[in-house]
């Protein structure tokens, strides 16, 4: 029983990546390239599944209808870049080796990097349960990362790119400033030190998690009901986070997949109903610019954020 997606990645590796690496004399990148092939294949499937489910949903009960939905296209680029393209490669190269290095250093000092399986030995071999527990921990970490990115001026300057979209769709999940992505990598790199279970081992679970994240941005009137909304984050719940009036540090509903952290830490708001999205405090390029115009506008806002201490508008 071999996974067809793994076989696809293996085929890519054997017939495209390895011959190319061999040609240019970079065979020492072999392991990294295989990791990337796996990421890319699984990422492509995530995109296709998300597309296949979310598009009919958005057609069925859209929150908003736009005469010109041109601003959506840039989000498609963000999605492909981060799920299939270059960003997984960067993560892999930058953090894989760094992680081995740091955990190895800890083991040298006699510190065994703590793992859940170490604390609860019965988890060893129970990879699915372990991964679910880790996914919950990571979701909590994501809540705090996201919440803090709304608190600090410089961080909000970057994250506001994500909020600038007025035509929010299921493609919008991955629209982030590159520096913001970088911070996320470091953030999760540290947490992954303690965790280290490769998400590649659980492609189906990762697919579900990432699907829920995309779905939560979808332009669809969809709530999971009173109880359901309190178990998993629905499009209705996350839309409230993206509301115009909620931009900056007045926001609510910071969670990514589980609403539990918002409920626990007092930031949940289940009352806001299908609001308009966007961030009026940012320049227009953040919303409707091309990919690079958005990145540059985010960078300008980031630099400005260190200058002025006044004008906390939109924070």
């Amino acid at each position, binding site marked *: *029983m*071999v*996974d067809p997606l*793994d*076989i696809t*990645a*293996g*085929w890519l*590796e*054997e017939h495209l990546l*390895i*011959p190319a690496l*061999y040609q240019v*004399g970079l*065979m*020492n990148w*072999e392991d990294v390239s*295989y990791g990337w092939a*796996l990421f890319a294949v699984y990422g492509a499937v995530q995109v296709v599944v998300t597309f296949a489910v979310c598009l009919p949903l958005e057609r069925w009960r859209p929150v908003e209808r736009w005469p010109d939905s041109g601003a959506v296209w840039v989000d498609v680029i963000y999605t492909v870049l981060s799920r299939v393209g270059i960003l997984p490669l960067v993560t892999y190269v930058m953090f894989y*080796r760094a*992680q*081995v*290095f740091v*955990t*190895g*250093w*800890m*083991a*040298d000092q006699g510190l*065994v*990097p703590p*793992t859940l*399986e170490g604390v609860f030995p019965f988890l*060893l*071999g129970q*990879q699915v349960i372990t991964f679910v527990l880790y996914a919950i921990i990571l979701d909590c970490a994501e809540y705090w990362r996201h919440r803090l990115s709304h608190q600090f001026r410089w961080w909000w300057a970057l994250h506001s790119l994500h909020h600038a979209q007025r035509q929010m769709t299921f493609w919008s999940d991955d629209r982030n400033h590159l520096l913001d992505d970088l911070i996320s990598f470091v953030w999760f790199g540290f947490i992954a030190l303690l965790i*280290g*279970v*490769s998400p*590649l*081992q659980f492609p189906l679970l990762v697919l579900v998690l990432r699907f829920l994240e995309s779905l939560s941005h979808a332009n669809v009137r969809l709530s999971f009901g009173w109880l359901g909304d309190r178990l998993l984050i629905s499009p209705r719940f996350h839309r409230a986070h993206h509301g115009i009036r909620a931009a900056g540090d007045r926001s609510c509903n910071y969670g990514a997949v589980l609403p539990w952290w918002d409920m626990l830490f007092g930031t949940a708001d289940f009352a806001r109903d299908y609001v308009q999205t966007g961030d009026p405090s940012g320049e227009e390029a953040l919303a409707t610019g091309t990919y690079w115009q958005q990145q540059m506008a985010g960078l300008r806002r980031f630099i400005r954020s260190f200058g002025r201490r006044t004008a906390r508008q939109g924070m």
Partner: protein
Amino acid sequence: MRRLTILLFLSFMTLAGLTPAWAGGIAFIVNSGGASISVIDMGTLKEVRRIPALREPHHVALSPDGRSLLVGDTTGNQMMFLDPNTGEVQKRIPITDPYQLGFSPDGKYLTVNGLARNQVDIYDAATMKLIKRFPVVATPSHLAYSPDSSTVFVSLQDSNKLEAFDLRTMTEKWAMPVGKTPAGVLWLNGKVLVADMGTDYIAVVDPADGKVLEHVVTGKGAHQLFMSPDSKVLWVNNRVGGTTVTLDPTTLKVTRRYAIPGGPDDLDFAPNGKIWITRRWAEKVAVLDPATGSYDTIDVGRSPHGLFLNPRAPSPTVVSSR
């Protein structure tokens, strides 16, 4: 009637006793991308179960007393000790980044290459105490000893070098350029052979000073070398070309070429003459019949890397149903 049954039973017992290799045998296949070790029944060529590893196991080595099979888990920073007869986990101990590992022929030392940490660690094989750590320029990947256990040779994958360490004085002897991306290392007739994954040849190196004496072309992405148990055939896996070739160990002439697609990596010899080869990107093991060139295929976990055959072990199918 009963006597007949007993007789029949006894004759089965004798049969089983006469052909231990066919009564069972366990193959351990290390799934580096699946955090597990596949246990294969060598008789049926079926996967019986998977032993969970912590994160990313790669290579194996049998302890000198034959009682433990060591499996290095790199990102897990853990050495697993398995019972080579049953696959039971004997213990797990913390060790930094155990990528490649090998015991010296005299059984005194265990060399552990930390690929990601750029270090070569020499352990006391009996106590597993670290004796010496050699920091190296880049990514130590494979190793081989001189037969007198005085020297260990380590290929440094991301540099172009092979490095030699004197185990008597615990000092570095030399580090010399031997190719583009040095991989597998093997001692052969007073020389050291190094497979070069970045090219299509193996380098023949003088163990005294690391000078390259000649190149032998085997195939694109020459990766790892193995000597058959009877020392009559040298096997080389070519990663990029997807081939396994045999060489005459005295003349170093290629005698035969087999197509093994899917990134052939490690290899082991079964007593029936079959060659077991891990195919990294295909998630399979090939059981090659060298006479015909055809092979059986066993599905295993993701990115199978190291492997170990124990033909004398009882059938794991019986073990697991116990």
